[in-house]
């Protein structure tokens, strides 16, 4: 069964790989901030009882998969890193709608 934590883990892993690819300080800063957000969300997912039958849950899983795939593509083409960051932001927002951490996400 798909889990939020498993998909968050995959996305964090890809964010780390993207961080190694880029040398742009602005992108590095965004990726690091995103990664910190993902760890905060991950902690909440571990802590909370998440109902996997909701629409929000499915939406979050789908968003995380899109973010993961975008990050994988960006590893091959660093021009796509900005797009991967945007996808990861969207996925973080989708997860936050479930755990309601209310963290300050990237614009």
């Amino acid at each position, binding site marked *: 069964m798909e889990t939020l*934590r498993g998909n968050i883990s995959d996305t964090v892993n890809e964010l*780390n790989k993207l*961080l190694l690819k880029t040398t742009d300080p602005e992108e*590095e*800063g965004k990726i*690091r901030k995103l*990664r*910190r957000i993902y*760890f905060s969300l991950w902690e909440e997912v571990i*802590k909370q009882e998440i109902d996997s039958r909701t629409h929000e849950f499915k939406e979050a899983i789908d968003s995380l998969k899109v973010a993961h795939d975008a990050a994988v593509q960006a590893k091959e083409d660093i021009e796509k890193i900005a797009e991967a960051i945007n996808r990861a932001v969207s996925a973080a927002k989708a997860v936050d709608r479930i755990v309601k951490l209310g963290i300050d996400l990237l614009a």
Partner: protein
Amino acid sequence: MKRKFMKASEQRYVTTCLKAFTIIICVAVLFGCARPTTHISAFSMASEDLAAQAIRGYELLNETTVQRKIAEVAADPELLPDENTFVGLLEGKESLAIRMMALDYLRAYSAALGDLSTADVRPDIDKASKDLYGALIGLRDTFKKETGKDVGIGNEDLAIIATAVDAIGTVIAEAKRRRAIKTIVIKADPAVQNVSKLLRDEIPIFGEFVKGNLSTIETEMIKSYQRRANKLTFDHRVKYIQRIRKQHHIARDSEDFFKDLGTAADMLGRSHAALRAAVEKNKFTTPELIEQIGELVDFAKSLREFYKDLLEGE
């Protein structure tokens, strides 16, 4: 840093290591033992050892979280450390701390059962039984607090155990001791099964998080190397890369360690079930139980060595 982390369980580790040596002796005398409850002692020591290793897993979860936060702050010059930087995953999250307590009670239960099976004088029996009640009450309360469900041992069960232990008497008779142990194992089994299942299902989840922590630290080490490489001598670059390699191996192996901890929790439950099945037939030695004890001993040893490899050389 890791030395500091290990101190938290150092005393317990030394104790369990010393006891582990005696497991071999206990198992060796299983087939023609001097005391019918000797294998109970062997079982309890192996169980205690496994539970202690699982506690280390929780400590690893906590510590790697703090180490990752430190790496994050260090990687970004605009960030400053604050009190949150030094807060581990378990701290401030009661539900996770409760699981660690449950494991410690499971360990204490195993230890007390072993002590009860080998005590030679009444004061030792009294101490073991006091430890046993404390562990079982702790198991019951922590499980209820976390899950909202009864763990499977109530006040009535505790009273029955107390009566059975009292019946051992001042001059310890083996038959009465065996009856007491039989009562304890049967009454405590539902609690042991419930807690071991909870841990079996959840511990591997933490392995993902620990690996995420360790991989993030590795990533920041590589980024740091990228920035500094052209200013370093060849020798310094080699040393730096070797440090990264070590971190890479730790991250890679950590997930397996947590999977094994989950297996250990499962093994604790299965071994106790085998013990229960044996004592219900008034048998203190069965082929199944001997096999389970053997597996427990092997697994505890393997986990101990794995943990040592995981943190060695830091």
